[in-house]
C-alpha cells in the first residue's frame, strides 16, 4: 500500500462524511451553457479602460468590447481598416487623415464620430482636458508624437505629428488606441474602467470582482454579429488550478497553458492552439566593461548557450530559437536569411582563447518570473551550466520581478555582466529603438542597459522610424538585424509561442500573433 493510496482513502472517507453530514452531495457538475464561452484568464483585470491599462490579460477582454481606428489583419501584424475605412498620409509623413465608418454607434447608443475620436486622444494626451484625471494613462507615450487631433467634419479626423513616425498606425491598432464612448467617460468619471462602453462585437454586462467579467453579443456589430451569445472571463491565477478547471469542464478556453501541463490535453476532447508572437527572450550583455566589452566574448556566449535544449527541454517546445533582435512574427520586417548562432562549444572556447578571456567571472541577473519571462530560473540555470562548460565562471543573482527591473533598467554598469530580459511589442521599431541605440542608454531615458553602441545601427533605426514606405522600412530593419547579430550585444535565446486550449465544443478559434484574444468568429455548441 503506497502513501498516496492511504491519503486518498482517508480523504475520501472524511469528505464523504462531511458531505453527508451537511446533507449536500452535489450531483456531477453541470456543463457550461450553450453559446456561452467561459474563458480562463490568468488574473483579475486591472481595469477595462483601454487608455489606462498595460497588461495582455486586460487586452484580451478589451479587444472584444472596443474597436480602434485600425486593427491587425487576421493572423498578421499588419494593419487594416476598422473604425476608419481609409486614410491618407501626407508626403512628409506628419499628417494622417482618416475617413471614419458611418452609422456606427457605441453600445450606449451614442454615435461614433470624429468628435469621439478627438475626445479619446485629447483625454489621454492633453493635461488640461476635463477628463484627463480619469487616468493615469501609462502608455500615452505611444502617441507622444501626436501634436494635434482635429475633427475636420463628422466623419473625418486629422492627426498632426511633430515628426514623421512610422509606427503610428501600428500603435493605433494597439489597445491603447481603442475608442471609448465619450458619454461613458462623462457619466462614470474615474469609474469608467469598471463600466466599459465601446463599439466592439461584445457589449459589457457585468464585472463581479474576483469572479467574472461577463459580456454579451452586440447584434448590430458593423463587422457582423458574433457567433456567441456571451463570453465569461474568469480570473484563475494559479496555472495548475486553471488546468484543473479546463480538465473538469469548468472553462471552455484556457490561455497560457504551462508547458508541463500540455500533455494533459492530448486527445480528441481538447484542441491545443499555438501561435508565435512578437516576443524575444534574450540576455543583455554588458558591452561597456568586463569580459563582454570584447565582441569575441559576446559571440562566444552566443555559441556556448544550447538554445535548442532550452526551448525543447526546459520550455517543452513552447518557444522557438531566436536568431536576432526581431522576432519572425513581424513577417515583413524579419530577416529570414539569418540563422541562429549554432550550439558550438568548441568555437566558443576558441573565441575565448583568442580574446584571452578563459575563466572570466560573470555576474548573471536572473528574475523569479515576470511578464513574458517564461521559466526564468530554470532557463538561467541551464544557461549558467552551458557557459561554465566552455570556461566561464558564472554567479547567479536572483531577484523578484519588480526589484529586478529596478536593478536592470538603470543599466548594468558596476553591477552585472549579463541579465535576462524579454519584450513583447506591436511594432518592429519599438524594441531595437528603445534598447539598441546609443541614444537609448539608461541615463538618456532608454533601455539600452548593456550600453551597446554602433553608429550604423543608430542610423538605420533612425531612418526606419521616419520611413513611411513599408518595403524600404523592412530593408532597413533587415540590415540592422544582420549587424546586430554579428555584434552580439545580447545572447539571442527564444521567441515564445503563445498557447491556448479549447474544448471540443468550441469552433472557429485561432490565436493571433498580436497575442490578443479575438472571439467574434468563435462559436460553441
Amino acid at each position: 500500500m503506497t502513501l498516496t493510496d492511504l491519503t486518498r482513502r482517508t480523504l475520501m472517507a472524511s469528505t464523504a462524511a462531511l458531505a453527508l453530514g451537511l446533507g449536500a452531495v452535489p450531483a456531477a457538475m453541470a456543463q457550461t451553457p450553450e453559446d456561452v464561452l467561459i474563458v480562463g484568464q490568468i488574473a483579475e483585470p486591472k481595469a477595462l479602460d483601454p487608455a489606462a491599462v498595460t497588461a495582455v490579460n486586460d487586452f484580451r477582454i478589451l479587444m472584444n468590447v472596443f474597436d480602434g481606428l485600425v486593427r491587425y489583419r487576421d493572423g498578421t501584424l499588419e494593419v487594416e481598416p476598422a473604425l476608419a475605412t481609409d486614410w491618407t498620409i501626407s508626403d512628409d509623413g506628419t499628417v494622417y487623415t482618416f475617413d471614419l465608418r458611418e452609422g456606427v454607434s457605441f453600445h450606449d447608443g451614442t454615435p461614433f464620430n470624429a468628435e469621439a475620436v478627438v475626445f479619446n486622444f485629447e483625454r489621454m494626451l492633453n493635461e488640461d482636458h476635463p477628463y484627463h484625471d480619469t487616468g493615469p494613462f501609462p502608455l500615452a507615450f505611444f502617441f507622444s508624437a501626436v501634436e494635434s487631433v482635429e475633427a475636420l467634419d463628422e466623419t473625418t479626423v486629422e492627426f498632426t505629428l511633430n515628426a514623421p513616425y512610422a509606427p503610428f498606425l501600428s500603435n493605433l491598432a494597439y489597445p491603447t488606441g481603442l475608442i471609448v464612448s465619450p458619454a461613458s467617460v462623462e457619466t462614470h468619471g474615474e469609474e469608467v474602467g469598471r463600466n466599459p462602453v465601446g463599439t466592439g462585437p461584445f457589449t459589457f454586462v457585468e464585472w463581479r470582482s474576483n469572479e467574472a467579467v461577463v459580456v454579451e453579443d452586440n447584434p448590430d456589430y458593423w463587422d457582423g454579429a458574433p457567433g456567441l451569445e456571451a463570453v465569461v472571463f474568469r480570473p484563475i491565477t494559479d496555472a495548475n488550478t486553471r488546468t484543473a478547471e479546463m480538465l473538469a469542464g469548468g472553462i471552455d478556453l484556457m490561455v497560457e497553458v504551462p508547458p508541463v501541463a500540455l500533455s494533459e490535453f492530448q486527445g480528441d476532447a481538447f484542441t491545443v492552439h499555438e501561435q508565435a508572437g512578437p516576443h524575444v527572450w534574450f540576455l543583455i550583455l554588458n558591452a561597456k566593461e568586463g569580459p563582454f566589452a570584447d565582441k569575441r566574448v559576446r559571440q562566444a556566449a552566443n555559441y556556448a548557450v544550447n538554445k535548442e535544449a532550452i526551448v525543447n527541454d526546459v520550455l517543452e517546445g513552447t518557444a522557438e530559437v531566436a536568431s536576432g533582435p526581431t522576432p519572425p512574427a513581424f513577417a515583413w520586417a524579419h530577416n529570414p536569411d539569418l540563422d541562429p548562432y549554432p550550439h558550438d562549444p568548441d568555437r566558443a572556447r576558441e573565441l575565448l582563447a583568442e580574446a584571452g578571456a578563459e575563466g572570466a567571472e560573470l555576474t548573471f541577473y536572473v528574475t523569479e518570473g515576470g511578464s513574458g519571462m517564461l521559466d526564468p530560473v530554470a532557463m538561467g540555470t541551464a544557461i549558467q551550466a552551458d557557459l561554465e562548460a566552455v570556461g566561464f565562471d558564472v554567479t547567479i543573482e536572483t531577484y523578484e520581478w519588480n526589484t529586478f527591473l529596478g536593478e536592470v533598467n538603470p543599466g548594468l554598469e558596476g553591477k552585472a555582466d549579463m541579465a535576462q530580459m524579454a519584450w513583447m511589442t506591436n511594432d518592429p521599431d519599438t524594441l531595437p529603438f528603445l534598447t539598441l541605440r546609443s541614444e537609448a542608454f539608461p541615463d538618456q531615458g532608454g533601455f539600452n542597459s548593456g550600453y551597446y553602441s554602433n553608429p550604423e545601427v543608430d542610423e538605420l533605426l533612425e531612418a526606419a522610424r521616419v520611413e513611411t514606405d513599408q518595403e524600404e522600412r523592412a530593408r532597413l530593419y533587415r540590415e540592422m538585424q544582420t549587424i546586430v547579430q554579428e555584434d552580439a550585444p545580447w545572447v539571442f535565446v527564444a521567441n515564445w509561442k503563445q498557447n491556448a486550449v479549447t474544448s471540443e465544443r468550441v469552433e472557429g478559434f485561432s490565436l493571433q500573433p498580436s497575442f490578443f484574444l479575438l472571439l467574434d468568429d468563435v462559436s460553441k455548441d
Partner: protein
Amino acid sequence: MAGYILKRLLSAIPVLLGISIIVFLIMAMIPGDPATAILGSYATPENVEKLNRDLGLDKPLVQRYFIWLGNMLQGDFGRSFSLNRPVIDEVLERFNGTLVLAGTSFVICSFLGVAAGVVSAARQYGLADKLITFVVLLGISIPSFFLGMMMILIFAVNLQWFPVSGMWPIYGDRDFAALISHLTLPALALATVATGVIARLSRSAMLEVLRQDFIRTARAKGVHERGVIWRHALRAAMVSIIPVLGIQAGFVLSGAVYIEIVFQWPGVGRMLVDAILTRDILLVQGGVVFVAACYVMFNIAVDVAQSLLDPRIKT
C-alpha cells in the same frame, strides 16, 4: 466594566498607529515602485517619474503618510492602483470570503479534532487509537496546498463531485447548496492540519484527566463509561483544549492564504499577496490595517468576555 472596555479601546490606538507606520515604511522601502510594476517593459525613468506624479507618489514620505492617515481617519482608504476601485470595497469583500472559509474550517477542525482526541484517549493503545494517530500524523505532515491540489485532482477533475475553484457558480443560483459545494474542498484542505494538531493535544489532555481520582470515583459509583468520558472527563479537559483551539483559529486564518491561491478563493490573503507583487501600496496598507484592527478588536472582545466569565481576571 465600562471603564475597562474604554481603557482597552484607548490602548488599541497606539497599536494601530504603530501598525500603520510599520506597514507604510515597509511598502516605502521595498525595492520596485508601483509605476515600474504598472509599466513593466516600458518603465523608462521618464515614464516612471510621470506616472509616479500621476499616482501622487512624488511627495515626501512624511507628507504622504499623513495624507494617507488623515484620509483613512475620515474613512477613505484610497483607490487601489491595480484594481482601480476603492480599497475599502475590495478589502470588505475579500475579508468576507476569508471569514467564510476560515470559519468553516475552524468549526470542522474543532469538532473532528476534539472527537478524534477523545476517542484516541478512551481507547489508549487500542486499534482505534493507533488508526486515529496514524491518520492524524499523516494529516499534519501533508502541506495544505499540496493536499488541496490532490483534492482538486481527485474530487473535482476525476470524480467531478465538486467544482474546481471559486466561491460561487458562474451560472445558476447563489444559494446555500452552491456555496457548500464550492466550500467543501478548500475548507477540508485547510482544516486537515489543524484537526491533527487539535486531536493530538486533546488526546494528551484527556489522558491526563482520565488518570485523576474523580474519574475513578465516577466509574466506582457506576456511571456509564460513555458518561465518564464525554461528560466528566471531557468537560475537565476542555480547560486545556480551549486555548489550543484559540491558537488554531489564528493558524487557520493565516493558512488560508495557500488554500485561497490553490482554490482561487476570493479571500483577503490572496488579495494581499497579489497586491504586494503589483506594488499596490494603498491596497496593501489598507488591507493590513483593516485586518490588524479586526485582530485587535477580536482580542479585546475575548479579554472582556473572559473577565466577565472569570472574576479572577482583574479589570
